């Protein structure tokens, strides 16, 4: 057998095994789902999260959909591919979200507008340069067997859980006005809202801010006009078109004109160039389309299930089913009803710390808003697991799965960058998905502020990374030929 044939045979064998493993994953998820439904049909609410997670994982890996790459590659290597993909997904999800909103099944709540969004985005954007992936990117890369990305997830989880429950020492960093305002809220004693920086930040600052959607501001009385014109066209599609033109001029046009040998391009040439940029990575565009459609569908299905069970939050359903451990004092749990990443990771670490004896239900974040449910019944957390499994499935089929053990540099970058992402996400009220993607597409303009912060943070991060590369090259001489 020649060398080529041997390689081809080995490749075919690997593909067969990968497809088999991938099939086993689906079969296992299907069996566990069937068992859960046999025990109680109301678990369907949780399973919707799991299966949508699988779908997101498949699309994310297929399109290598990573918002860290969107920001980073633009500044680091001037490649607009991912930024364009994110913009396509944004425009499409805004349309499906508008449809869901008109149907009355939207689960979205606008974020309060304030400086914290810009600052949180900046810290988050700086962190993602060093971790090699955004919050959703780190999930799909974990599914590719990347242990460094798993460290990022670990770090995002624990940094958040610790940050939202900082002790009394952190009070010194909160302005007196926050403490006074938090005390005025009349919150139950058990939450001790005037103790701890994050509680004062939430109860004394964020709660005093307000937000809304473009549709609400239009207030035309027609749900169609408010949703499609306000939330989709004005909040998402017009900014997306503007950004695509800027990306074309700044990062694509020069190379395109050279390749096409165009010296005096007319408007038609420029439009063809923009189209070429948009379609230059088909995988990313298809992933953007898929994510946009599925994210809208998930809101729809969850909204319909809430109506069916007569609940506003999964916590009520869990309580009816007899699971009250880890619910907030309002009998709720974190249950966004759409694609979300970071909060459930904070809950995961918070739950572990709680089990180790930490008294972390006495804060606003876990005690009042999100709860600390057992990971096995934490629906959004199982969606994240679904994303990892979905990404693993397609990576196995495409023969891209490989266990990758990080070296010391990558591991330290993962832990430090992940911690910055966790802290940034909590200050900015979400990650690239919750604070940007899900926000702007539902008419909430604060998402663009988060993106602006994230872009600026990414720009500074790339500068810092370059400086690190130079330093290493000068020190170790391994790159100075």
């Amino acid at each position, binding site marked *: 057998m020649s060398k080529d044939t041997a390689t081809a045979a080995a490749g075919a064998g690997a593909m067969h095994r990968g497809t088999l493993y991938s099939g086993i994953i689906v079969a296992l998820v299907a069996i566990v789902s069937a068992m859960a439904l046999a025990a109680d049909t109301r678990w369907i609410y949780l399973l919707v999260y799991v299966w949508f997670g699988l779908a997101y994982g498949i699309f994310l890996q297929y399109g290598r959909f990573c918002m860290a790459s969107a920001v980073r590659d633009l500044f680091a*290597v001037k490649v607009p*591919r991912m930024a364009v993909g994110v913009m396509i997904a944004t425009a499409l999800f805004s349309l499906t979200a508008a449809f869901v909103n008109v149907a009355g099944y939207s689960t979205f709540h606008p974020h309060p507008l304030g400086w914290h969004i810009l600052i949180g985005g900046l810290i988050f954007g700086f962190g993602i340069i060093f971790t090699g992936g955004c919050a959703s990117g780190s999930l799909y890369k974990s599914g590719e067997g*990347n242990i460094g990305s798993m460290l990022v997830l670990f770090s995002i989880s624990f940094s958040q859980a610790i940050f939202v429950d900082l002790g009394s020492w952190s009070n010194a960093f909160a302005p007196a006005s926050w403490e006074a305002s938090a005390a005025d809220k009349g919150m139950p004693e058990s939450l001790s809202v005037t103790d701890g920086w994050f509680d004062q930040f939430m109860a004394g600052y964020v709660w005093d801010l307000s937000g809304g959607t473009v549709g609400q501001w239009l207030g035309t009385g027609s749900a169609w006009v408010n949703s499609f014109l306000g939330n989709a066209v004005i909040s998402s599609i017009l900014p997306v078109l503007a950004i695509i033109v800027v990306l074309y001029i700044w990062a694509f046009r020069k190379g395109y004109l050279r390749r096409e040998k165009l010296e005096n391009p007319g408007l038609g040439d420029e439009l063809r160039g923009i189209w070429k940029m948009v379609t230059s990575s088909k995988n990313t565009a298809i992933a953007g389309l898929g994510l946009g459609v599925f994210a809208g569908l998930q809101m729809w299905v969850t909204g319909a299930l809430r109506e069916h069970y007569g609940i506003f939050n999964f916590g009520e359903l869990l309580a009816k089913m007899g699971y009250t451990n880890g619910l907030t004092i309002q009998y709720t749990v974190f249950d966004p009803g759409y694609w979300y990443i970071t909060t459930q990771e904070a809950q995961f670490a918070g739950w572990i710390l709680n089990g180790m004896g930490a008294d972390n239900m006495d804060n606003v974040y876990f005690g009042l808003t999100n709860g600390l449910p057992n990971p096995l019944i934490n629906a959004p957390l199982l969606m994240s697991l679904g994303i990892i499994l979905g990404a693993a499935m397609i990576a196995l089929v495409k023969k891209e799965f490989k266990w990758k053990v990080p*070296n010391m540099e990558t591991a330290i970058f993962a832990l430090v960058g992940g911690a910055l992402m966790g802290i940034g996400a909590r200050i900015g009220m979400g990650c690239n998905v919750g604070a940007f993607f899900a926000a702007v597409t539902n008419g909430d303009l604060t998402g663009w502020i988060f993106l602006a912060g994230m872009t600026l943070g990414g720009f500074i991060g790339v500068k810092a*990374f370059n400086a690190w590369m130079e330093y290493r090259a000068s020190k170790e001489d*391994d790159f100075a030929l």
Partner: protein
Amino acid sequence: MGIKFEKVDEGDFLLDCCGYVCPHPQMYTKKALQKMDSGDVLTLRFDNPSSGESIVAMCESEGNDLYERDEGTGTYVWKIRKG
């Protein structure tokens, strides 16, 4: 295990980024290509799939010729001729 960049022969370079995730492979590839002359060949080894997408786009945009792609085992060995 660090990133290895070495001159194998006249006009023939090797960059090994295995074990590194984004953004190392694409940023080091860019840096390596900057250090090479037009017509030189870079053999690039990496195992982070998403970096590949960026490297393809980068080569296309800068006029470098990515003429050989050996993949399928989780490790990618690509050859790029600087334009």
